[in-house]
Structures are given as C-alpha cells and as structure tokens.
C-alpha cells in the first residue's frame, strides 16, 4: 500500500542523517582531495577590485619572482572567519596572499576586513563565480598555491587550521 510506505519516509530521512552525521563524527576534519586542475596554468582572468582600498586581481598578478597563495573566500562565509587568523599568520611569514571574493558586496568585504584583519595584497570580485569555477574550486573557502610561473601547484579545501599553516608554507617552499 503506497500510503503506508509514505509513513516510513521520515524514518528513512532520519536514518540517512544519523548515518552521515555519525560517519562525520568519526572522521578527521582535515582531508585533502587532489584536484584535476593541479599542475595546470591559471586560466586568464581580470577581476575588478572587491573593495575600494585594495586593487583587483588578474592572472598577471600571479606571475613573477615567487609563489603566492590564491584564497577563495567571501564575507558571508563562516569558515572564512575561522581561517582569518591563519591567513594573517601566513602573511606575517611574508607570503603574498591574493584573495578572490565570491558573490560579495564591497561594504561587506570592508566590514569583514575591518573586523577580522586584512591579510590580502589584492582582492578581486568574482560576482558570478567565473574564476572560481575555472580553477576547479567548488566552495568557499579554498586556498591554492600558485608558483612563480602562474601554475596551480596545490589545493587546500576548507578553512586553514593552525596545523595547516606549516603545511602550506612547506608547499610554497616546494613551489619555489
């Protein structure tokens, strides 16, 4: 009888949720997935500034002298708040961080930077996620290591935690 089967739907949904949540509780939070874009050069792009106080970002900004970090973030993204201190720590180590703000507004970006600090050398505004999709990033926040030739060398998915700082510094060293 169909109507009887419908009554089991809530239980099935709950079982699915409990299963996923239970699995998540047993998982270590730091997991890295190799992206297919790693090893490929950055696609060409030029984004307008996301906030008045900083310049925008273009592919040319990544080319020359040293490897840099490309940080995909947004002021509306909560994990981005969590990773702000780690980005500042990286900047304090002399790393140049170029931000790309996804679907954001200048006022919100300015608020975020005022409140959580500004580790960025420049921030481009990606209002339609074009660059985000082009470099194979599926969410915010994500951080990429780009070498001096503009080639994507490493992808970090999710917020940068304390122990990831050393890891990213090592990846930047490798990309020299």
């Amino acid at each position: 009888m169909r109507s009887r089967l419908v009554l089991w739907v809530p239980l099935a949904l709950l079982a699915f949720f409990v299963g996923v949540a239970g699995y998540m509780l047993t998982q270590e939070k730091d997991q890295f997935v190799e992206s297919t874009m790693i090893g490929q050069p950055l696609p060409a792009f030029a984004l307008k500034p996301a906030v008045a106080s900083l310049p925008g970002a273009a592919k040319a900004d990544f080319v020359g002298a040293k490897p840099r970090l490309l940080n995909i973030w947004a002021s509306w993204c909560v994990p981005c708040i969590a990773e702000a201190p780690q980005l500042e720590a990286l900047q304090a180590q002399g790393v140049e961080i170029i931000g790309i703000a996804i679907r954001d507004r200048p006022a919100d970006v300015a608020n975020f930077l005022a409140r959580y600090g500004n580790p960025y050398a420049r921030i481009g505004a990606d209002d339609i996620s074009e660059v985000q999709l082009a470099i194979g990033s599926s969410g915010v926040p994500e951080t990429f290591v780009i070498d001096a030739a503009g080639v994507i060398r490493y992808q970090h998915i999710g917020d940068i935690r304390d122990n990831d700082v050393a890891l990213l510094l090592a990846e930047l060293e490798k990309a020299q």
Partner: protein
Amino acid sequence: MIAEIGLAALWLAAALAVLQMVSGGFALRTSDGEAMNPLAIYARPAAVVQAVLAVLAFAMLLWAFAVTDLSLKLVASNSHSMKPMIYKITGTWGNHEGSMLLWVGVLALSGGLLAAFERRLPERTMGATLAVQGFVALGFYAFLLLSSNPFERLPIPATEGVGLNPLLQDIGLAIHPPTLYAGYVGLSVAFSLAMGALLTREVNPAFARVMRPWVLGAWVLLTFGITAGSYWAYYELGWGGWWFWDPVENASLMPWLAATALMHSVAVLAARDALRTWTIMLGVLAFSMSMLGTFLVRSGVLTSVHAFAVDPERGAFILGLLGLYIGGAFTIFALRAGAVSEGTRFSFSSREGALVFNNVMLSAILAIVLLGTLYPLVTEAFDVRVSVGPPYFNPAAAIFAVPMFMVMAVGPLLRWKEDKPARIQFEMLLIAAVLVAVIALVSFFGQFPLLPLLGLGLAAALAVAAMLPLRGRKLTRVPVATWGMVLAHFGVAVSLFGMACEGAFTQERLAAVAPGGTEQVGDFAVTLQSVSPVAGPNWTAIEARIAVSRNGAEPVILNPQARSFWSPSQATSESALLTRWDGQMYVVIGNQAEDGRWQLRVWWKPFVTFIWYGGLLIALGGVLAIAGRVRVDVKRRAAVKLGAARRADLDALNPASVPAE
C-alpha cells in the same frame, strides 16, 4: 558538600526516571474497562519527586558558581573570582555541562508539572506519556552523569578560574539560553503527549486540548528567545546585522518553525477534530528539531561563530539519543499512524484549508533551513567543504514565505469546514489594494531590492488584515484567545516591516576619521570628539566619544568601545546605539590607522527596532492565547465543581432519592 548533594540528587532523579518509565509502561497493560494496573500508580509521584531533585541539583550548581567554588572543575574552567556577581550566576549555564543540567532541570520540572496537574487525559494515555517523558529524561541524565558531570571535583583546587568567553559576558546571556531551553523542553512534553496518544490510540480533540498549552508555552518562549538572541547578536557582534543564518541561529529557528506549524495544527485538532496524523508528525518533528539543534551546537560538526563546548564524544552521545528517540518515534509513527483514522474532512476554501496551506509552507521553509544548515555537513561527508549563506536562504525562504503571508492575511477571515471566497471579497480586495498601493508608492520614490519592497507591501497588507477579524464584532465580547491571535499576526506585520525597512533604507558609512572630524550619515552629523582608554573589572578598552546631531539639533554623546578582555584574552567591539522612534543609529569603532585616524562604521537603520518589537508582540499574543485558554479552563473546572457540589447538596437533602430508572 554542595557538589555532593547536587550529584546525589542527580543520581536519585535518574533512578526515579527509570521508575517513572517502567511504572508508566505498566499503564499500557491495563485493558479497556479494567481498573488501573496497580504497578502504574508510581509514575505520577516519581515524576514530581524527580522534578524536585533535578531542580535541587541545578540550585546546588548555581550556589557553587555564586561562591566561586574553585575545587569544582566546571567553576574553575568557566568562572573567575573577579567576575561581577551577575555574570558568575549566568556563567552557570554559559558552558556545556551547566546548560545541559539546566535543560534536564527544566525537563524534569515540566514532567513534574504535567504529572501533578493534568487530570483530563485517560490514565492509560497519561501513563504512556509519563513513560515516554521518563525515557527521554533518562537519556539526558545518562548523558550528564556519564559524559558531562557538572559536579566533577579537581584533585587540587585551582587558585583562580580561567574566566568566561567575553562575548558571553552580557546580560543577553542571562535570558537568551534559558528561555530557548525552556521552549525546547516544552516541546519535549508535546512530544511525550503525542507519543502517549499515538501508543494508546487516543489522538482526539481532548488530547489536543491537553497538548495545546504546552505547545503555546513552548512557542512563546522560543519566540521570545529568538527575538532576544537576534537582538543580542545585533548589538554584541558589532556587524550591524540582525540575522546571519548561522547554524546555531538556524538551530533555534527550526524548532520555532515546527512549533508554529504544530500550534496551528493542534488548534485545528482541538476545534475541528481534523489533521490528526499531521499533528502527531509535527509533535515529533518539533522535538527532533530541538534535539538536532542541540546536536549541531554541541558536537562541533559545523563551523559556527557560536561554536563552544565542541567535543566529538558528546556529539556521538547526543546523536545516539537523537537516533533512539526520534528513530523510535518515527518507527511507532510509521506503524501506528496508518491506524489513526483520518478525522473530519473539510474543503480547501475553509479556515482549516488555509491553516493546512500555511502549515505546508512553514514546513517547506523548515526544510529549506534544514537543508541549508545540513548541506555543508553532507557535502563534507563526500569531501567537499562549503558554506551556505544568505544568498541561498533569503530567496529560497521567501519563495514560501510570500504565499504564506498572503494566505495568513485571509485565513482568519474564513469560516471553519467550508466557506465561499466570495463572502469575504471586500476584505480580500482591501488587502490586495493595500499591498499594491504600498508597493507602487515605495517604488515611485526610489529603486529598492525586490524582497524588501515585497516585504513592505506585505507588512502593510498584513497589518490591515490582522485587524479584520475584529470587524463587525463587539470588541468587549471578543474572546481573549482571539485577541492573542490578532496581536500575534499584527506582530508578524510589525516585524516584517522592520526587516523590510532595514533591508531597503539602511544608510551606511565606513570612514577613517581624525578626532574632531565629522561625517554625514542620512540626517545625522557624526562627530568624533575624542578617543580615550578606559578599564572595566576584567577588560581594558579604547572608548570613542562621538557626538551625533540630527538636522543640527542638540547632539547626543555615544561611546562605542573596542574592548580587550584579559581572561581569556579576546577582543570584542561594543557597539553604541542611539534609539529613536523611527530607527536606530549604530556606531562601531575600529582600528587606528597609521596616520592617527580612527575607523568608524556608522549605520542609520530606519525602523530596525520594529523587528524586535514585532517579536515581542508575537510572544505577547501567545501569552494572551494561553491566558484566554486558562481562563476558560478555570471557568470550566469551577462549573464542574459547582455542579458536583449542587448534586451533593441535593443528595444530602433527599437521601432516599434514587436516580430515575
């Protein structure tokens, strides 16, 4: 000694929960027409004594915090002898263990109240309800005693405590979490009643009338708690926003949405004997949303600005309880709900029809919020980490909220069972005219985003519609509960108006200002007069002296601060607010730039306070509805008593009288 008394009371309460569960279970073995199973009589007293013990345990913990007993691990890690007394006391529930003890205390208290005062239900249903309530309480006692003992002693007493999260050192904390908890727990009673009724096949209007005050009470507390929490986040986080769709905020919103739907559906069941299965389903859903909220907040599976007390082991425990209770409830639901008969039928254009439509819309919004909150968790399980924010929640929720508000305007005007829309065509035209006129007027004066524009129109239409049920009635004869509905619906309009104004008309200014400099925001001239260091009991701060003058009038001085707490060290910004009847000025001071200028952020938010006034009106409407029901109930009880007394008098006058055969 204090801690030992508390711990002993907690263990005894747990033992009584077992007794309540088993004894209540025996009530189910009583078959119809038979006297009560003799083993079932212990459930009620067990629930009452358990309530006393659980409250005692919480009182002991309050005491330990008040005197800063540093031999307790919980006090040492969450309090500080230098803290102001009020925050020592609120610190009792500003941490994981204490707040869980508060939760259990309120749970036991409401179970005790139910057992002591509720006499309308059949004893079998009551026994089953108390058994479920005992079973739920037992899980939380086990959680406290086995994995989060609040009374744990330190081997060597600490010399000083390590403070409290400074964001939580705020009067908002004194009211916000306890109110929400009491609301969550009220839903647990609704859950137990729903299960009791389902198990004993007593899903009927009598049961709905017993359940209604608990749902209404829980809903009032949740409304109040969310309103207070939103205002707290607004002035304490210093972002100028009032809702962030943060997982923890959503965790409090979801039970409210479910409770709102449940409250309306239980009213239909009580009045019309319809929506039986749906009411049971919502009863389970409302409580599962409160448990889910607890799980999300406590387990740390989601990143949140509120995240505290993060511990996977505790998360696993709560998840286990969630699976057990809600899984069990859904299983019973699936097995039994098919056997619950359908109840009275009604046509779509009737008050029931409108309520069902809005219930479905509320459930859809609940699903939207639930999906958005859990989506990051689910994708993370597949190794993709995302954050879902307002760009998803606002439009997705609006898709269902807009038709809901429209039906909400018309629903109370319809008659029960069946009605012709033509009967209320004047009212419908009036509401539509207000809606269109306001939208046209506002868009004539400027370019505004779609959602705030719609919000303004709907708010005006709803405000008019909320008053229409009073039309043509003698105001002194309108029942108190109806006034409650009118007030609550009007409160929704007020709140919506505040949200729309905030969205459409907010003026914002972010500027670097040198002392003496002036910035113009809307009608206001904002002058930074000076910046000076100040110190509080456990913090130091930079305090700005800002003169705000509207259209050249006498200036008002505001003092926003950037505070640094030293135990534990953490920085917060204390916004300064200037409230006028037509809005609020919101000022935050930021960092000092190298050239000596200060970062000032200033917002003028027209009518933003209406968001919370509306919330309070909604809660007040709920209070009126409860008061109305209680008054009717007291009258009924008095009448029953009077009738019994008259009969006794008659019998006394005429002892030989026998009832006519």
